[in-house]
């Protein structure tokens, strides 16, 4: 048996499952879909540590799983068009890190 089978590997879904959330009623992240449609790389789909953004070519929409957001702000800075409307979730909502 190789060592690799013994190490705690995990998918992003499994990783996010370890995080505590109390999502707000509506998304606190609103990308400008007009920019998303012409964005050649959809870089947010890659660098977001919580895998919040998912480009759906069928609907031509950048889907936002805001419930998983770490509120880190990387997408606000890393969006090439800087066109993600970004606010902190409402009072007492969003992510809670139990260890940090």
């Amino acid at each position, binding site marked *: 048996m190789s060592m690799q089978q013994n190490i*705690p590997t995990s998918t992003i879904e499994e990783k996010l499952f370890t995080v505590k959330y109390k999502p707000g009623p509506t998304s606190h992240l609103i990308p400008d879909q007009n920019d998303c449609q012409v964005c050649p790389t959809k870089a947010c789909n*890659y*660098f977001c540590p919580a895998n919040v953004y998912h480009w759906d070519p069928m609907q031509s929409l950048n889907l936002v799983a805001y419930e998983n957001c770490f509120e880190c702000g*990387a997408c606000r*800075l890393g969006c090439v068009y800087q066109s993600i409307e970004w606010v902190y979730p409402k009072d007492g909502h969003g992510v809670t*890190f139990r260890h*940090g």
Partner: protein
Amino acid sequence: MADLAEAVDVVIVGAGPAGLAAALVLAKAGKEVVVLERGEFVGAKNVFGGAIYTQPTAELYPEFWKSAPVERFNAEHRFALLTEDSSTTISYKSEKHMHAPHYNSFTVQRSLWDRWCAEQAEAAGAYIVTQTVVRDLLWDGDRVAGVRTEQEEFPAKLTIIADGVNSLLVEKAGLRRSIPKPNEVALGVKEVIRLGEDVINDRFNCENGSGVIYTIAGGPFEDITCMGFIYTNKDSIVLGLGASLYDLQQKLLKPYDMLERFKKHPMIRPLIAGGEMVEYSGHMIPEGGFHSIPTLYCAGAMVAGDAAMLVNNVHWEGTNLAMASGRFAAETALQALENNDFSVYQLALYEKLLRSSYVVQDLETYRNILPTVEHNSDVYLGFYPRQLNSLMETLVGVDSVPKKEKIRQFMQSSFRKRSIPSMMMDMIKIGGPMLR
């Protein structure tokens, strides 16, 4: 216009190391101070590596290790340079750092540590309000006159903006011309992996509550600006990495995939084997340094901690700079309240205090190092770790080739890849700022 007759002395946005340091100093001086924190509890939104540094922390919280929720004191620091399949590690360990009061640093969990700091500020008389998001600033002409939360207005004679690396308030205050660029921040991701206290002691060579810090360069990250780290808690370890947001954005990399690759490296693998991942998290790190610091004050307000981008990206110091800036902001506030003067002329004292301390001086010393490494990440984080490991292979490997021949081959291949003048320049670019 805000009604300043109702105002508290100081409102602080954000209960992190900077905000809570300011709150403690102000409350101890008998001022009316309110800290507004958006998390469910103090520390709920906060993430770091990480370690807090003993000497600067003890300036605010004397002998904190006796009562605060610390995990381990760090007696050893290991620096590991990796290739894809090998590693060379240098370790520094000192008996000196294994005894009070000479501990160099402690690992802590932010959910516990930040709450403890909040309790100290509360005991001194500060009011700490959680689950409260500050949406905007209040203005009296061109002076900041408090803040607006989701629920109400909070007039204050002075406002300390300590809302972290993703500070929307710094921008609302007009203290930064544009939002930080992706190359001014790193994105950190990490996992807390539970191993058990005894396993950690055995695997990491720890005793009597001591711990180890790993700083890791190269390996699976060699083509981008990215460093890895390990910290030991009491019964868990923290494994993570920080990567330039610009590199992630340009190369379309997923930080959590990089973390998985990192785990499989032969140096890392046996350290985490059998562990249970208990929490994954991510946070931005303001690594832009000196050039990224916003305007630090305006009439009625000061900026502290990560919101002011006060992180030493070479030595990985942040909480100590945050605490120091919070303290300087509080000391400036005390002067301002004493003189009843909240103008830029009075608050300029804050910048003066920061500039005359290690906080801004260190950032200035290192102002060009990160750009240098970033532009040459293939050299500093690729070529050099590879050559060092290749040298070690040359020295350690036994293969019936005469040693003289092996060294000659190593030298030849090194200088073929990078000329002697280039290597000298590489050293000067990194070492030079320290000697100037």
